[in-house]
């Protein structure tokens, strides 16, 4: 069996499962954020029961600190739900960050676990060897009540990336390269599994970027076999026990894709699909905004990459650069490493940990015709603001290099 099949089998109390089967499986954690929480809480009240406290995680990240009265009411509904049912795993303003970063930092995500979240980027925890996937609000409410959910066992696809990556080539470029190759529905309903020496050599942070964007290929999950880097991360933070799961030697994959890391370069995904990729060095587009943050690329490693490019330089006068660390602890680390000062000395604007500009409803919203180079995961029509604005997805070093020149720039080309 593949990793996804094994995790589903274990959680369905079965010896084995096969692709396309529908199984009822026990869920380890269910997470909702402030946007998907409200509809979940409304549905939950219809059940006339109490939530399974130890499995329920509530995270305020999209529209907090409350941006207007409507978002204030929405966030309040989560606060009230947490108090009413004495749910202690509630991360509110000042203690929070992007929900997926919190799930990873606080030891909810771990190898072999089955985790669902009412946010499509819940697939991020595949980087720790978990099967984690996005669901809707009503389903999240149902899981809070029953602790179970049905799954169609996905077919698995194997992606192998071997070789050495160039200086400015990151996890983001690997996943953009793959999505450019297979398309935004190339892994529809599937489980992606990632292997190869280039994946092994990546930091956990870069692996999270890859798993995070599995959904941009339509996948249910994007899993990387856990190794020492994952176990080190979990030391002193994981909640409870966990057991790593690996694929059998004779696991069946629907497709096998192989890539040479040496051929990969910093990539950019042009509007309005993550599959519209082109090497950063081959595109000449002026930008108005540069955004560094999100569950995709808002970790300390991402901030370091961008700061290394920005150090001693200034953001182009026609560009506003916005930096949003993915969590409180990333922010604190960036402060102590002097990265926040690097950004501010370069004239970037630094804001507290939230989803920030990623989804175009909270801050950093684009006007008509404006363009943003962004370390986020989606460049859909109107994603960051006006329907005629544009988002170009790239890695943190490309975002920083572009902020300096005012046009999309491969950091290698900065003289």
């Amino acid at each position: 069996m593949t990793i996804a099949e094994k995790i589903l089998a274990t959680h369905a109390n079965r010896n084995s499962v096969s692709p396309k089967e529908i199984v009822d499986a026990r869920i380890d954690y269910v997470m909702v954020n402030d946007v998907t929480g409200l509809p979940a809480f409304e549905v939950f009240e219809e059940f006339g029961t109490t939530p399974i406290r130890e499995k329920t995680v509530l995270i305020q990240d999209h529209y907090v600190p409350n941006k207007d009265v409507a978002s204030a009411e929405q966030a309040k509904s989560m606060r009230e739900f947490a108090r009413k049912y004495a749910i202690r795993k509630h991360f509110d303003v000042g203690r929070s960050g992007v929900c997926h970063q919190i799930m990873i930092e606080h030891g909810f995500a771990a190898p072999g676990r089955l985790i669902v979240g009412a946010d499509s980027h819940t697939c991020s925890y595949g980087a720790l060897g978990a099967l984690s996937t996005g669901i809707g609000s009503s389903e999240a409410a149902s899981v809070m009540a029953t602790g179970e959910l049905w799954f169609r066992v996905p077919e698995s696809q194997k992606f192998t990336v071997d070789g050495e990556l160039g200086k400015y080539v990151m996890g983001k470029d690997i996943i953009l390269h793959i999505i450019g190759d297979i398309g935004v529905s190339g892994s529809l309903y599937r489980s992606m599994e990632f292997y190869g020496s280039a994946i092994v050599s990546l930091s956990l942070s870069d692996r999270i970027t890859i798993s995070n964007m599995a959904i941009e290929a339509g996948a249910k999950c994007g899993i990387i076999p856990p190794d020492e880097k994952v176990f080190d991360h979990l030391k002193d933070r994981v909640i409870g026990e966990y057991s790593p799961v690996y694929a059998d030697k004779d696991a069946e994959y629907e497709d096998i894709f192989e890539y040479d890391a040496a051929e990969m370069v910093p990539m950019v995904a042009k509007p309005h699909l993550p599959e519209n990729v082109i090497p950063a060095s081959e595109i000449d587009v002026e930008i108005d905004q540069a955004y560094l943050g999100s569950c995709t690329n808002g970790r300390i490693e991402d901030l370091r990459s961008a700061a290394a490019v920005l150090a001693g330089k200034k953001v182009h006068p026609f560009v506003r650069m916005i930096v949003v660390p993915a969590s409180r602890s990333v922010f604190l680390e960036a402060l102590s490493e002097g990265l926040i000062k690097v950004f501010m000395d370069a004239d970037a604007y630094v804001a507290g940990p939230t989803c920030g500009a990623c989804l175009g409803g909270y801050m950093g919203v684009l006007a008509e015709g404006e363009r943003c180079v962004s370390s986020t995961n989606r460049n859909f029509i109107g994603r960051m603001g006006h329907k005629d604005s544009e988002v170009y997805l790239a890695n943190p070093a490309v975002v920083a290099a572009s902020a300096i020149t005012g046009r999309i720039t491969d950091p290698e080309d900065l003289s």
Partner: protein
Amino acid sequence: MKKYIEGRVWRFSDNVDTDQIIPAKYLVTGDRRELAKHAFENVRPEFAEDVREGDIIVGGKNFGSGSSREHAPRALLGAGIACVIAPSFARIFYRNSINIGLPLVECDLDAGDGDVLVVNFENGRIVNMNTKSAYTFPPLPDFLMKLLDVGLIENTKRKLKR
């Protein structure tokens, strides 16, 4: 659930994402009718005004991609959409729609804006009344058909009683 529907088509292309169906700035309520006021606002600004109860959406492949927001199928139900037909659906949109009672049909068919379709869920047949072309589609697996019929909320209540 109705066994048979007849409705007017709104035609969309491939990869309609949930940001198109309902932009993120409106995700401050779960109310269907309220969300429906902004459905497809960026890409089909006339939709919210002109959509009629019983209309059908015909999309291209990977319909409903992107965000997990259940607000997307809720907005479509609030707008009175009776069914969405597409060659393939993004998985979270698919689950959300079935859970809250929005029928989905996996079928690749030719239909333009304003065409009238007759969809028969019992025998898995669709007829485009304008072109007279007929299409077939595989019925939902039993498990999903029951879920669509009963709804996730009722289904969960029954589970809790067991």
